[in-house]
């Protein structure tokens, strides 16, 4: 039986209050908050974090054999982004990793392709959504990622939700578009889009229910999502499901995460749903695709290590609008009087990929001393080349000492540097992210997170940073 084997979603720590936009630019601004990827996050790093949550605790043997990455905002064109996710997850080189990028529709396409695959396939859906300052896309968008592992179940890795059927209604029409290189999308007048989307949704939904022999009132959880908010609302009203079956779209707490949103809402639903429940996901994106799933008895025992609700509760909503604009490259501020960062060089990054992307250190076979980065000569016993690689991305540690560097180049000064003593041995000095510089203290607990350190000469420098372990969304005690 093929179906959903694991799932996880990741929401960045920062929130922008919509009223902060109005305070700066005038207008109504709206209520609630939207999630904001930090200056050191992009769709690739968001995807890695979601996948880490989905795969936490899973043995490599039951891990993905393929990785499909979908986003509208890829870090690179012409270079595959899924390979960095593959490397950050420490997957075997025989595992396929490909991108399906460009439009929101790519996300549902990746999910359907995975559900047809005969091997476990990890679908990573990720997006960073914004638009022109003061506009609806900026206000209503959100940043986040979801990861869904799809494939045949095994006794060790049971199916959590069967994928029962899918139905699509495709049509070429002009609603939302962006030519490559533009920094914002354009949309047609919304009533035209509604006139196309709603009938398409009607047909896809009816087709789906017919395939699974259900009536609308038998749907336990209905997820309707798409960037055309008016159509999403219209169709939801007329779908005929019970009012309590409608899954909240998280508009007030997250915003619409585009390609990731269907996966995010599915994860949020799976965080709570009981066994034997029917979930229908309807995605409105250049046509409509509907997917039906049914949860299994295994779900309650295998929910995601960190829930969507916990991450919603764990965010920080004090981000200044100016910082939001700066992080998205729309407000250029004066940098420290320091040289621009160097781009990394391809050969050393290639030689050290297990460390750079996989955070794989080493442990001395003779004396057990742990080394970050991996070492050939043991600092403790001096033995040479008696080391076993050890993946350390899921470690926790304690801040031994720290500093606030106001001189260093960083896209968002000041840089917070910490020296971490790692549980089980070893020490590492690195940057601390997602933190108020004034709140750092010796003894703080931290975990690792995959980030984009900087971009130089068009090269994104991905590496690991520490972040505080927080009560909400904490993975403490959930060692891999």
């Amino acid at each position: 039986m093929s179906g959903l084997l694991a799932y996880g979603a990741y929401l960045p720590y920062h929130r922008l209050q919509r009223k902060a936009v109005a305070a700066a630019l005038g207008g109504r601004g709206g209520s609630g908050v939207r999630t904001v990827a930090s200056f050191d996050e992009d769709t690739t790093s968001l995807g890695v974090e979601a996948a880490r949550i989905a795969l936490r605790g899973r043995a490599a043997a039951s891990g993905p054999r393929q990785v499909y990455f979908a986003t509208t905002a890829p870090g690179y064109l012409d270079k595959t982004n899924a390979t960095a996710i593959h490397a950050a997850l420490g997957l075997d080189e025989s595992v396929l990793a490909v991108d399906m990028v460009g439009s929101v529709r790519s996300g549902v396409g990746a999910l359907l392709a995975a559900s047809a695959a005969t091997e476990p396939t990890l679908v990573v859906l990720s997006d960073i959504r914004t638009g022109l300052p003061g506009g609806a896309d900026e206000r209503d968008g959100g940043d986040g990622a979801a990861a869904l592992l799809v494939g045949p179940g095994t006794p060790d890795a049971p199916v959590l939700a069967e994928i029962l059927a899918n139905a699509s209604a495709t049509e070429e029409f002009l609603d939302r578009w962006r030519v490559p290189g533009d920094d914002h999308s354009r949309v047609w007048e919304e009533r035209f889009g509604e006139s196309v989307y709603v009938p398409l949704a009607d047909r896809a939904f009816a087709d789906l229910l017919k395939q699974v022999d259900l009536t609308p009132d038998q749907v336990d959880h209905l997820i309707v999502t798409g960037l055309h908010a008016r159509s999403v609302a219209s169709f939801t009203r007329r779908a005929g499901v019970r009012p309590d079956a409608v899954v909240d779209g998280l508009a007030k707490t997250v915003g619409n995460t585009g390609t990731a949103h269907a996966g995010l809402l599915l994860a949020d639903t799976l965080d709570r749903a009981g066994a034997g429940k029917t979930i229908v996901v309807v995605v409105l994106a250049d046509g409509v695709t509907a997917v039906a799933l049914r949860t299994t008895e295994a779900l309650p025992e295998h929910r995601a290590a960190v829930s969507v609700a916990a991450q919603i509760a764990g965010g920080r909503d004090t981000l200044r609008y100016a910082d939001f604009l700066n992080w998205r490259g729309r407000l250029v501020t004066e940098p420290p009087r320091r040289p621009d960062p160097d781009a990394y060089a391809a050969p050393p990054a290639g030689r050290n990929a297990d460390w750079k992307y996989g955070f794989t250190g080493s442990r001395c076979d003779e004396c057990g001393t742990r080394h970050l980065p991996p070492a050939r000569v043991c600092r403790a016993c001096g033995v040479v080349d008696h080391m076993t690689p050890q993946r350390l991305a899921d470690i926790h540690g304690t801040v031994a000492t720290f500093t606030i560097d106001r001189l260093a180049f960083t896209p968002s000064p000041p840089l917070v540097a910490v020296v971490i003593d790692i549980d089980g041995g070893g020490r590492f000095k690195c940057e601390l992210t997602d933190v108020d510089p004034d709140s750092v203290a010796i003894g703080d607990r931290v975990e690792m997170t995959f980030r984009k350190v900087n971009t130089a000469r068009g090269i994104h420098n991905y590496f690991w940073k520490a972040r505080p372990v927080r009560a909400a969304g904490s993975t403490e005690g959930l060692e891999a």
Partner: protein
Amino acid sequence: MASHGIRDKVAIVGMGCTSFGERWDSSVDDLLIESSQAAYASAGLSRDDVDAYWLGTMGSGNSGLTLSRPLRLPYKPVSRLENYCATGSEALRNACYAVASGAYDIAMAIGVEKLKDSGFSGLVGATPPSDGTGSETTAPANFSLLAPAYAKKYGVDTDEMKDVLTRIAWKNHVNGAQNPRAQFRKEVAKDVICNAPLVAGPLGIFDCSGVSDGSAAAIVVRAEDAHRYTDKPIYIKALSFIAGPATGNSDPDYDYTTFPEVVASAKDAYAQAGVTDPRAELALAEVHDCFTPTELVLMEDLGFAERGFGWKEVLAGTFDLDGDLPVNPDGGLKAFGHPIGASGLRMMFECWLQLRGEAPAKRTISTVAAGKKLGMTHNLGGGPGECVSFVSIVGSEPSA
């Protein structure tokens, strides 16, 4: 295996030192010509008398040509060295060993750095192509790690710690105010130091050494020849250089309140020189006060204060110009400025002046008049957890 040293085998017979600071009017060539001409004149020698040269510069030029070209040296051996902030001292060490070996009669160690032309704040160095996983932190941030670690270990509260660091910067500015060659030649009030904009951690701009241009040079000969060139040679008692295993930032046992490399090089240098009580025996110490917490920790690593008591000695004025052991009477890196390749030789220049009784009256230390005849220079390069360290001991008299 042993570190024997070359105690009293080599002596400095001439020195030169430029003024440090924003030398917009001078090129690297100009600075090298200025310091070398002063050193030649000081020893009563001409360019052609010197047999070999050791040039220290971190980034102001490559190869011996950096020196031979501006000086138009007539086919002499010139080595170019780099060893982080110990670069100038490393030039001296190698020149001394060359003379001690008998390979040359007369050698010059010269250091230079031109930092201000980069246009950047702080220190800027070229790094080899990398995998992008290295630390992004700056030097002040790396050294600022010492302050909270020290304060926590020894129960010094945050305000007291700030007072200690401020006292060190204040003292070095007081000393620098009496030094016509210094980059910063004025005293700075403690509240101005204390309330200055922050650079990294608790360190404000006055906790950081001056980014500077400058050059310094020394001429060394065999000790038995020294009186041919000067009545007051300065004898090399010890030269110790240590490169650490660079494990502090990956070893949980390192606590950021000490530089093990400094402890090791000081122990080696004291053994070479026969010094058993440095605080009592030294007339002065020129130490690497790149940032104020560095000077604090060095007072303990070099054996001038008991562990955990350095901060009290700082506040008590032990290391002031009129204290038991004057530290950085020339203003140190803080006020004199820190042109990397020149700094180690600049420190030696202060020992040269003080031990020979040639320092300006207002910063003449009383320890020399009281009969102390030894001086120390100390550099470290890198940062807490991974650094190189140099310690020299010099004296105005050969051992009995």
